[in-house]
């Protein structure tokens, strides 16, 4: 039996757009800024419904981060929108000084993250953003896995006081989480119990882990699957409790191995309960142009890679 029947294919950025639109109706302090990518970020509905609370920034991301920091002074809750590449590396110092160090309540919303941006190629496919953001003190880092979870996360971060990095993507991916879910920042979601191995996945790789589970079951491996949607603060207890039961772990993410979720998990386990770990992540490489599914296969972050890594992790327990 399959874990989930994914009925629809939707992009996580549309989940962000839907969540932002809902916030527009429910929270009058929410304002939105976009650096000339309103359509790509699915922010049009908010912009049309609340023109007084939407700021078209033009192609000036550094200014956008500073203006967002300023908007918080007096109680606004700014949501900035641009591609993940331009939301992080391009404006790292602006985020560091004016937002993180200054403790400003800015929600940095980043689309087109990772390889699955596709044809635009490596200039736009940032695979370092989670690392950059998780290193910043005060920053909360979230990478939801599907449309519904992204929508719920968008709504949840408005209620959270402090800077947040919310990462999502461009391609249509299976929608498999509950439509009416409540998103709890920092709380892992155990998708399935298992006893042989813990597979910890974030973002688009969560569905790949779900797909892998079926093949693993046929090979006699009972995998526990955990969705870490909040990279920081990390739900260490959920990870440690699971690994104490299974004795090995696989991490899976659309990100560089250096600085990603896998390293956060490693650090936690090394301090509390060291076990064999295998990493499904991009290994110190830039991406390239291609279709999302082609890129995930070529760079080793697809379902077969999760299966292979899991078999290896289980083998290493012996």
């Amino acid at each position, binding site marked *: 039996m399959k874990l989930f029947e994914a009925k629809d294919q939707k992009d996580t950025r549309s989940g962000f757009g839907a969540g932002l639109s809902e916030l527009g109706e429910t929270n009058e302090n929410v*304002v939105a800024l976009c650096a000339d990518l309103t359509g790509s970020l699915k922010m049009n509905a908010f912009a049309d419904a609340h023109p*007084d*609370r939407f*700021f078209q*920034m*033009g192609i*000036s991301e*550094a*200014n*956008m*981060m*500073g*203006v*967002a*920091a*300023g*908007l*918080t*002074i*007096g*109680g*606004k809750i*700014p949501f900035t929108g641009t591609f993940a590449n331009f939301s992080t590396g391009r404006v790292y*110092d*602006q985020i*560091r*000084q*004016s937002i993180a*160090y*200054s*403790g*400003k309540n800015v929600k940095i919303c980043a689309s087109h993250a990772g390889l699955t941006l596709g044809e635009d190629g490596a200039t736009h496919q940032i695979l370092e953003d989670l690392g950059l953001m998780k290193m910043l003190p005060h920053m909360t880092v979230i990478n939801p896995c599907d449309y519904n979870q992204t929508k719920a996360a968008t709504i949840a971060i408005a209620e959270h006081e402090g800077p947040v990095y919310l990462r999502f993507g461009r391609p249509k991916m299976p929608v498999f989480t509950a439509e009416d879910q409540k998103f709890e920042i920092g709380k892992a979601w155990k998708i399935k119990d298992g006893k042989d191995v813990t597979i910890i996945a974030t973002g688009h790789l969560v569905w790949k882990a779900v797909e892998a589970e079926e093949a693993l079951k046929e090979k006699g491996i009972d995998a526990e699957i955990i969705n870490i949607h909040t990279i920081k603060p990390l739900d260490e207890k959920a990870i440690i409790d699971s690994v104490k039961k299974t004795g090995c772990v696989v991490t899976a993410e659309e990100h560089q191995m250096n600085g990603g979720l896998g390293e956060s998990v490693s650090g936690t386990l090394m301090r509390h309960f060291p076990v064999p770990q295998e990493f499904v992540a991009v290994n110190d490489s830039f991406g390239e142009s291609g279709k999302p599914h082609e890129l995930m296969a070529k760079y080793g972050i697809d379902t077969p890679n999760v299966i292979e890594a899991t078999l290896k992790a289980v083998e290493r327990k012996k």
Partner: protein
Amino acid sequence: MADSKELKQIASQVRRDIVRMVHSAQSGHPGGSLGCADLFVALYFDILKNDPKNFTLDGKDENLFFLSNGHISPVWYSTLARKGFFELSELKTFRQLDSRLQGHPATEEGLPGIRVASGSLGQGLSVAAGAALTKKLNGEDKLVYVLMGDGEQQEGQVWEAAMFAAHKKIDNIIGFIDWNNRQIDGDVTDVLDLKDLRAKYESFGWEVLEMDGNNMDMILDTIGEAQKMTGRGKPIMILMKTEMGQGVDFMMGTHKWHGVAPNNEQLEQALQQLDETLGDY
């Protein structure tokens, strides 16, 4: 309007504080701080009308001030303390471990008067523009003031913010540029010339005024003029001619005192030139 004679006396004390703080820490930036002392005193003792005992980060229904060139923190700290935002004795802790008076202004330690960290240059005008937008969204008629350095104008983000503020008709913002033509490595005109700064801001869609930033009467008059120009669809920039090191003869006419602390002998020489009007901390 406050008595400019009284303001000048306060400024003399602020200058003493600056030199003593930087000397005591044996680090910090005296030159720009001395040059801007008159502006800070005018703002905090006349223009802003802030209640120092009820500082809030949100600053609702208050005029706001942002310092973008955060390295001149000594002049800000002294002015805030002299106005009563915190105890004068805290000036002794400048740049020391466990102090709220960080080398560059920060919110992390909760020092009253500071609403955003600054020091990494080029960011303050953006922050001020955002805060000014929030004032508009909240229906407030209060103003947002922001000071930048002239060397800082070399940062690209300044021009993103300048373009944005004019395009969005953010007409409740009054900016200042400390136009002393000095930066760490030398004269601004030698390091990277700004050319015609007035024409630059005017072509970006700003109203531009000029003033002598070391002349208290002119500061008060010019800011008064700028206030009358608010609410007319354009942001306002005041190009403020100052002398780096103003008030201490051997610190003037050079860029060398941008970020250097005086030794004991130099401290004494400096203090001889600055009247102790309010009593040293």
